[in-house]
């Protein structure tokens, strides 16, 4: 067995120092639902595991100037139980709590989902649609990056050695705003998205869409933002023409692979369908807030 060390620092600076000292052989542990599987399969053989869960602020949800701040190691179960977060960001919460079983929800975190960098990560399209940002701690201090900048390829992130995500921030919400996330899987539970779609939108006083953001998962090497799809919704009440525009733009943005979960053709078609349905749900939710 190779050398392996485990540390559980209590400050973000100590965590960054431990990661930097470990170099390329250091791995961050939050919920561990991906990391332990990779350790066991032999895909990873780290020299040191840096457990974030004892770092101040790494677990928990707080409100700050209209933003929700979610600690990086906060498990899905806590995300799902937070009523105010669920009211403000129903799409983010449904995406996070769709992941895995009750047991996985007891551990798995959204920051872990981001950093595992799977194109099919359920919480990522919802976070990207929400314009979530990540507070990243590293040897040179703190920086902020948008959620869509974390994954750069399947399994690869833009985080430099010694860097880790400390918290995820969801921006202040204008009135009449809501989001939704839908995924397609062949069963009802415990599966990986064949396609995922997150839609976040705001309505103006007249009930027309004034802002929109659409993100798709599992149809490209990373989660993608589809600006043309969002544009198709602006100034509309989601009439058929707007939805057809959204659908076409979503399909046009897809560059998926064919694998055992679905073919290129299937994924592309479903991306349009899910984007439509998620937009309809987000629109209805936003309308209820008028």
């Amino acid at each position, binding site marked *: 067995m190779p050398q392996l060390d*485990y540390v559980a620092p209590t400050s973000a600076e100590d965590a960054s120092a431990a990661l930097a000292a470990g170099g390329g052989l250091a791995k961050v542990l939050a919920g561990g*639902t991906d990391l*332990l599987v990779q350790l066991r399969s032999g895909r990873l053989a780290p020299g040191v595991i840096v457990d974030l869960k004892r770092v101040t602020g790494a677990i928990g949800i707080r409100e700050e100037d209209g933003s929700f701040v979610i600690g990086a190691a906060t498990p899905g179960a806590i995300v799902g139980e937070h009523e105010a977060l669920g009211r403000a960001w129903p799409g983010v919460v449904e995406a996070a709590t769709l992941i895995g*079983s009750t*047991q996985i929800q007891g551990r798995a975190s959204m920051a872990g989902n981001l950093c595992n960098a799977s194109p099919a990560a359920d919480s990522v399209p919802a976070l990207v649609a929400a314009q979530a940002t990540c507070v990243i701690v590293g040897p040179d201090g703190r920086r902020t990056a948008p959620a869509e900048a974390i994954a750069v390829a399947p399994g690869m992130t833009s985080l430099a050695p010694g860097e880790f995500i400390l918290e995820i921030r969801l921006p202040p919400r204008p009135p009449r705003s809501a989001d939704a996330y839908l995924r397609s899987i062949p069963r009802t539970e415990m599966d990986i998205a064949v396609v995922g779609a997150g839609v976040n939108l705001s309505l103006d006083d007249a009930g027309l869409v004034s802002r929109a953001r659409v993100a798709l998962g599992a149809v490209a090497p990373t989660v993608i933002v589809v600006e043309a799809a969002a544009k198709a919704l602006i100034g509309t009440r989601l009439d058929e023409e707007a939805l057809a525009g959204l659908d076409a733009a979503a399909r046009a943005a897809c560059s998926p692979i064919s694998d055992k979960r679905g073919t290129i053709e299937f994924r592309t078609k479903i991306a349009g369908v899910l984007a439509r349905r998620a937009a309809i749900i987000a629109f209805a939710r936003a309308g209820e807030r008028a």
Partner: protein
Amino acid sequence: MKRRQISAVVNGDPVEFLSWPGATLLDALRDELLLTGSKEGCGSGDCGACSVIVDGRLVCSCLMLAAEAQGRRIETIEGMAEGGALHPLQRKFLEHAALQCGFCTPGLLVAAKALLEANPEPTESEARYWLAGNLCRCTGYDKVIRAVMDAAAEMRQVRV
């Protein structure tokens, strides 16, 4: 490489054990503490046979490092019966024959206990979703669900 000493509370009792840095909580429970009720089915968090409750949360002990258990409160299947008295869920599993080979049963019982602590009056659908992470290849789940619903009903009666 050296083993680390871990202190935790397991089923209400303070325990200390040594663990290798890469060992899982499941490894420690089974090999160090000799609590072999928790089973390893898949080792990847898919089957739920290793389910335990850590600080009130249901988790797969195969997906948690033993070192993470430092200072945590852990409940396993071994703590479910009180002395000789079976937990209502255990009795109902027997009454409804909700097991055949029994390998998944400790995990299902621990998961069902966590369900009834969080939601004493689950619908059948809620129970099925909650237990979706516990695989059973023998029963077809129906008897398991009947046992859980029956135990929930009995526990509600006792509570009143």
